[in-house]
């Protein structure tokens, strides 16, 4: 199914009238479903559906050496695959620029907000720490992969239980508490035809070059990423941060 120019024009025409093709308000998300425990071998997992976009995130624990400069901290790794299943435009192979950007933005949202209790993940200082590996698997791509992925990743982490450990052997039937300190939520705000909007569908993403992904915790703004080829004035950015604050507060209620 190809997104035609006609669809693109209709989308822009609607937005000019502060309307959207699917009848939503400009600052309204599509229907959101969040399901947990979807990957039975993962220590935590979540499937997030936003409209027709579907993303699964799974958390696995492993054991590794700490980084030399943080000998008493566990490690976080976030990876995203844009598998060929999710879109006729995706190809098999190592992550491209899009998938790399997505995983790094999700990673920073979690890392910079200090959500993950990295010190609790130390097993033996300088020798052995837990590695928390979050894999994001895009299943169906109908726009706004970024917000869906960030939501799935943090929900999977919230659900995760830390396994036990016997020497070097990971005991996956044990479940130890593992609580996030904060809940970072991403909201991408775009500007099209002088209007701000959130949760862009695929066709809406095709017609904008100006988006900012804003990640908020309850305690503050923790990460920003302007995306696409456009630009913003400072005042526009401030307005975008404010919009994202409100929307992430709404999204937070869905997972807390």
């Amino acid at each position: 199914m190809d997104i035609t120019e006609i669809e693109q024009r209709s989308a822009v025409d609607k937005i000019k009238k502060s309307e959207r093709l699917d009848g939503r308000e400009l600052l309204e998300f599509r229907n959101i479903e969040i399901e947990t425990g979807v990957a039975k071998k993962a220590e935590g997992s979540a499937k997030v559906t936003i409209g027709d976009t579907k993303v699964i995130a799974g958390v696995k624990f492993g054991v590794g050496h700490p980084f030399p400069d943080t000998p008493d901290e566990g490690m976080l790794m976030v990876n995203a695959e844009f598998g060929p299943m999710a879109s006729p435009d995706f190809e098999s192979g190592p992550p491209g620029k899009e998938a790399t950007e997505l995983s790094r933005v999700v990673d920073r949202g979690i890392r910079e907000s200090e959500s993950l209790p990295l010190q609790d993940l130390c097993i033996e200082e300088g020798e052995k720490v837990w590695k928390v590996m979050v894999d994001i698997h895009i299943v169906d791509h109908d726009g706004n992969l970024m917000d869906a992925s960030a939501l799935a990743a943090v929900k999977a982490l919230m659900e995760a239980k830390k396994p036990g450990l016997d020497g070097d052997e990971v005991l996956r039937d044990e479940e130890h508490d593992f609580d996030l300190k904060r809940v970072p939520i991403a909201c991408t705000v775009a500007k099209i035809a002088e209007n701000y909007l959130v949760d862009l569908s695929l066709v809406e993403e095709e017609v904008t070059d100006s988006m900012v992904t804003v990640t908020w915790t309850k305690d503050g703004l923790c990460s920003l990423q302007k995306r696409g080829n456009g630009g913003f004035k400072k005042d526009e950015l401030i307005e975008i941060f404010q919009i994202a604050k409100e929307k992430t507060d709404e999204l937070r209620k869905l997972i807390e």
Partner: protein
Amino acid sequence: MKTMKYDKELLKDGKRIDGRGIDDLRDMEAKAGILKRADGSGYFRMGKTEAIAAVFGPRELHPQHKQKPQRGILQCRYNLTPFSVDDRKRPGPSRRGKEIGKVSEGALSSSIFLEEFPTATIDLYMEVISADAGTRCVALNAGSIALADAGVPMKGLISACAAGKIDDTPVLDLKGEEDMGGQVDLPIAMNADTGEITLLQMDGMTDIDEMDEMLELAMKGCEKVAEKQKEALMETF
């Protein structure tokens, strides 16, 4: 089939560790049409093993020099998601995954009227979300649903399941612990309408009589799988 030592009985008074009898399948779940962007899609779960599949095509095959003038080809990708197994799997194709992709093509191609799509490709992507033995069969079952859901003209549904041997006894549909401690693993795929076996792999020590017995078990399993697949497809109409 790993050569693991197993220290508990897998079979006791004709019952298996999860209470199943010798010829019982795990509980199954099947769905069709679960994805929007793909031309066809399917989901299959057998116990704790589950997979989703998506079909794109028939579409143009690149690079061109791989095109066949007389017929289309089916290309299968089988992949374990990183979180589908105990120790995180590194993304990217493994040797095992490559082989399963190939035998999946062998299992499904003969059931598709490929001659109707000269030079084209049908691409089937199978992703295992959770792996507790029998992943290739579960992936194939999802894949076959996805092909039908995509409206690809087919001679029949392909249905897959494994038989095996535990504690010297042929049984149907090994689950995780049984697979680890088992003696033989025999995954097959079959066109349940014709009884033609299109995937056959076997690991472990056995003989011809035992093979006969295990094949019988597996074929009956495939018939039950086929019913479940058809139910799922009916629901989408």
